[in-house]
């Protein structure tokens, strides 16, 4: 049973036009910047927002189309909201049991099932705790248990880790991955964090301005970005150009030598760590080398990222030692060099 959706929603100046299919047991991540339409897509799938046109169907049953609309409360879904939206006046157990009760399970049975779910997410002993006394990670797990307890066919996760601090996030992410692997239904994960998407999803759909700009497995997307946004997410230098053999003339000016011959319009990528910086023109081995100017210097955890203007403009990650040797300041002139074997070119 596959979920197929053509999500077309128009609101004011914004329009969402996104086709998604999710197989049973598959986790699809919808990744995109703020305002790309991720939440709109999620709300449409949840039945909180009717489609302007298009349709949503799971197997034989239609949820939304020109002549049928199933409201949220009639859809077999579970949603984990970004700030969880746990009911403050109910205990953790009552929160998890709420969906079962609403769908007609008897009280005792619903409470027993809810208690099992709390156990499954590692919250035995928190049944009577009110949401306000739970930590962020615990509240997230209650929200997940609440969404999964009704045995939904579609699980929707809206930035499920965004509200957590870095250390909790790591642990909750791996737990969430385990629960998603056990879940047999369809999962759509909405996030703007590439790491969450790469770790948790089987397939990524990158959304920009209401349109899918790229789809694929996490490793495909990470190796072969197709837009500046995706390249930026996965941390690669990214260029469009036209290839003749192993030479690529870049659209933005300059050219690069790539390891294997290709022809026609291509994308070229290489990591910022592959870039070496020299005060003068490097001599010797066959390299891509071109003059650049320092535009900005950013300090990251263990490396320094240098933004360089030139043809082409490039990002370089250098060690602190190199930074000290070169005594870089914005405006300085340098030479950038990249080995051809570090680059990767693929057809557009």
């Amino acid at each position, binding site marked *: 049973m596959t979920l197929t959706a053509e999500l077309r929603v128009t609101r004011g100046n914004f329009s969402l036009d996104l086709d998604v299919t999710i197989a049973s047991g598959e986790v699809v991540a919808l990744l995109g910047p703020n305002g790309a339409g991720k939440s709109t897509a999620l709300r449409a799938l949840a039945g909180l927002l009717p489609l302007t046109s298009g349709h949503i169907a799971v197997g034989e049953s239609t949820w939304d189309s020109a002549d049928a609309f199933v409201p949220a*409360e*009639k859809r077999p879904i579970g*949603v984990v*909201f970004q700030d969880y*939206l746990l*009911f*403050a*006046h109910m205990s953790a157990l009552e929160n998890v049991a*709420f969906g079962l009760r609403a769908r007609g399970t008897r009280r005792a049975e619903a409470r027993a099932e809810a208690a099992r779910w709390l156990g499954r997410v590692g919250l035995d002993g928190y049944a009577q705790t009110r949401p306000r006394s739970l930590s962020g990670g615990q509240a997230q797990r209650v929200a997940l248990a609440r969404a999964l307890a009704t045995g939904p066919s579609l699980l*929707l996760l809206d930035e499920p880790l965004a509200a957590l601090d870095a250390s909790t996030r790591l642990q909750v992410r791996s737990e969430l991955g385990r629960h998603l692997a056990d879940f047999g239904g369809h999962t759509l994960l909405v996030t703007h964090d590439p790491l969450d998407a790469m770790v948790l999803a089987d397939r990524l759909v990158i959304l920009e301005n209401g349109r899918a700009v790229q789809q694929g497995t996490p490793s495909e997307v990470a190796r072969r970005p197709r837009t500046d946004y995706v390249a930026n997410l996965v941390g690669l230098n990214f260029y469009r150009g036209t290839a003749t053999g192993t030479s690529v003339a870049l659209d933005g000016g300059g050219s690069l030598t790539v390891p294997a011959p290709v022809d026609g319009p291509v994308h070229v990528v290489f990591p910022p760590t592959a870039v070496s910086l020299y005060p003068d023109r490097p001599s010797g081995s066959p390299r891509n080398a071109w003059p650049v100017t320092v535009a900005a210097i950013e300090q990251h955890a263990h490396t320094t990222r240098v933004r360089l203007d030139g043809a082409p403009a490039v990002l370089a990650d250098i060690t602190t030692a190199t930074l000290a040797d070169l005594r870089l300041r914005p405006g300085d002139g340098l030479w950038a060099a990249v080995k051809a074997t570090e680059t990767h070119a693929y057809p557009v």
Partner: protein
Amino acid sequence: MTRHRGRGRLPVVLALPAFVGLAFLLVPLAGLLVKAPWGSLSGQLFSAEVGEALRLSLICASLATVLCLLLGIPLAWLLARSGLPGRGFLRALVTVPLVLPPVVGGVALLLVLGRRGLIGQHLDAWFGISLPFTTAGVVVAEAFVAMPFLVISVEGALRAADPRFEEAAATLGASRWLTFRRVTLPSVLPGVVAGGVLCWARALGEFGATITFAGNFPGETTTMPLAVYLALETDPDAAIVLSIVLLLVSVGVLAGLRDRWISGPT
């Protein structure tokens, strides 16, 4: 070290009217206590007429509050959540009884629910029900005047409550009615309690609409405020005692509300 710089004394032009205003509000209340017949107070307090009026007042105000809760909470929900067109206009209409002179409200009720009124004549002909000049009439008059207090308080609470919790309930399979009962209502409970108490206090003090619509029959429609007014002509001491009882009830309500507002949930 800590020199207060600059703001200086309170300007007389503000301080003087402020203190006059304070005195204006408090002196009459103090007068009530000063003039009270403390000697015969307990005798007066437990006399049959006072007891009867007090009992009737409490019953009618409570019934009116229940009526207001049953009708007012759904009305507040309609105004806050339904997306009904013309809600702003409806909200304005709901507040009319708040500013309407209660006597006018009483006259309006008579015209509609009186024995020959628009609806009253049918109530009388079909069911043999006549509201004017009965205890039920007192409840109706009090509810008419007091309901806006409840509606406005509950509607304010509803509008402040995050509607996304209702969406979360919907995704869990809850119908709108279940969502209202189990999610919305509990989250606005402080507003409902505050509105209910205000509504009850207003109903308890109701005079104009009650005497116009329900008249003044001891034991049946003579509530405390009516009894105070009547007693003033025949037995001023009794009027003072009744007034003190009402004052105590009002202060009690205020104190109860303050507790609720300070230590209430969320």
